[in-house]
């Protein structure tokens, strides 16, 4: 799959200040140290991939970034200002949107109702304040079409969409509501080949609109396809950040697995992993 040739990279100036910066983040749960000093940043218009194997601390890190957890130590700054989120809602208001693996989509509800869930536009005043249904439907249809999905009707239930389409609804929703940083938690892990490339194309489209994308994955090929920078997380620590072109897929793979064992395995499997 030659996905990486489809997208352009390096739009972001190398010395642009990061929009979101996490410094020496530590997170302890009781006596378990889930994160032991992680630093990470993302600029507008770039896709920064966070790679790590299961249990590396990816989920904890994302949840810290999106306001679900409070870091035990470390600082979070947005556009230079220190932030201290106490809820996902606050993070959202600061422009950090997270698309979790479960997508925060409700299958029984329509695409429109899902799209505006928690942030419904209203018209009218006082007790006559009501949903602006026409606008909701129109916005949903337009934005889904922009992302390459033609809905039968805005009241189509999300349950009837495929996994990739749902992912796209979630991304379109985050972008519509003014996300400056979009955190995608393993968006491709459960998808087939074609849906994966659709989602990667969506990421590219969003990046071109000037949004900073944090792409979490354990699939090096998917990351290499769209990433501008790569950071590997292992056992709660970062093993460094590399720019595109400075590192090969094999090296990333090795770092994720923690080196040696993987090299041995790879030998016996003939480089198929």
């Amino acid at each position, binding site marked *: 799959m030659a996905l990486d040739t489809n997208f352009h990279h390096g739009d972001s100036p190398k010395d642009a200040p990061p929009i979101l910066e996490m410094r020496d983040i530590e997170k302890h749960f009781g006596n378990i140290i889930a994160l032991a000093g992680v630093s990470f940043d993302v600029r507008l218009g770039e896709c920064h991939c966070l790679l790590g194997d299961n249990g590396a601390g990816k989920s904890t890190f994302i949840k810290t970034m999106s306001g679900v957890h409070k870091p035990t130590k470390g600082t979070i700054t947005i556009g230079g200002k220190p932030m201290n989120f106490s809820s*996902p*809602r606050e993070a*959202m208001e600061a422009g950090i949107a*997270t698309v*979790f693996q*479960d*997508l*925060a*989509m*409700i*299958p*029984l*509800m329509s695409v429109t*109702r899902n799209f*505006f*869930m*928690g*942030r*419904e536009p*209203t018209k009218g005043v006082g007790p006559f*304040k*009501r*949903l602006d*249904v026409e606008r909701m439907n129109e916005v949903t249809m337009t934005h889904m079409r922009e992302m*390459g*999905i*033609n809905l*039968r009707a805005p009241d189509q*239930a999300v*349950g*009837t*969409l*495929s*996994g*990739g*389409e749902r992912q796209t609804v979630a991304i379109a929703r985050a972008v519509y509501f003014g996300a400056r940083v979009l955190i995608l938690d393993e968006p491709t892990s459960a998808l*087939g*080949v*074609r*849906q994966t490339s*659709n989602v990667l194309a969506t990421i590219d489209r969003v990046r071109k609109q000037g949004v900073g994308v944090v792409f979490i994955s354990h699939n090096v090929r998917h990351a290499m396809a769209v990433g501008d920078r790569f950071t590997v997380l292992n056992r709660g620590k970062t093993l460094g950040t590399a720019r595109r072109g400075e590192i090969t897929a094999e090296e990333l793979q090795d770092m994720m697995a923690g080196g040696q064992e993987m090299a041995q395995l790879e030998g016996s499997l003939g480089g198929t992993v």
Partner: protein
Amino acid sequence: MADTAQVIQDERLKKEGLGTRLLRRPELGAIAGFVLVTAFFLYTADGAMFTLSGILNFMTPAAQLGILAIGAAMLMIGGEFDLSIGSMVAFAGLIFGAGVVTLGLPLILAIPLTLMVAAGIGAINGSIVLKTGLPSFIVTLAFLFILRGASLVGLKLASNGSTQLRGIRDAVEGDWLAPLFSGDALGPLFVWLADIGLVETFSNGTPKVTGIPVEIIWFVVITLVATYVLLRTPFGNWIFASGGDRDAASNSGVPVRRVKISLFMFAACCGAIVAIITVMDAGSTDARRGFMKEFEAIIAAVIGGCLLTGGYGSAIGAFFGALIFGMVTIGLTYTDFDQDWFQVFLGGMLLIAVLFNNYIRKRVTGER
């Protein structure tokens, strides 16, 4: 695998007919059931059932159950149950009765007091469910017994040892708020209708039907308000979201706790409204008031298209669910059938409704 559903005009998507689109409306089953039941009684029952007084005759119990059913339906769409609303009718009846008889409060104080106590208990129910994460089924089952027992004990205290509290009619006689909660509404309209010959009159000229019982008005108004809230307000969207997937809703910024606790409070207040209306109507209150009504209300909601798992349903559906109930309970007396068929019918209806809803859910979510 549904991999290729993303082409401009997907050739694998069949055009949806009107029938399929209608099938997706949650209230369809209840309306179909209502038509069937009406047809059944038109065919088998005495003609008196469908005269104006006959209709009001079965609408009254339907409305009393229906107010509870709307509360239960809203709560079910929000993903929770309340098994204590039947007992709440007895308990709120006690609070109201003791308020007007024992304490001698005017209605303007007694009614808000009753509603506030009910809302408070609803809030306690909701808080326990949300704090502990226990199923609402078990928490409210506990309150089913607590409130029923408390009503018995309270009644004995308020009436010196009896389980019935009398004298409510005398106590509220002449209160300016009473017409809102008791008797018939739209009286002058019916006098006028009788004058122009649209309503039958007794020989002395007074109309045979003097108005619409207030509970029917309450029932219709609550249904309309609930429907408006569900379909046309952000709060309605939050109700569907909270019931559909609590975590997803909360991650999207929906205040799930607030939504669910308000729904518990609303359901409890529905119980209190039924209590106030029926107690004022009967002039007394007793500890068996609202007995088993929680189940009937939930069944009416399920017949109305509410899924037991939450996130789907409608108030209009529950409205028709309650109408079916009222029609069958009262309607059987107009036929030659043994009235005890009622319970058989109840169970059968519930079973059919659940099977039908399950099928609909699969259609809606595209499950295979």
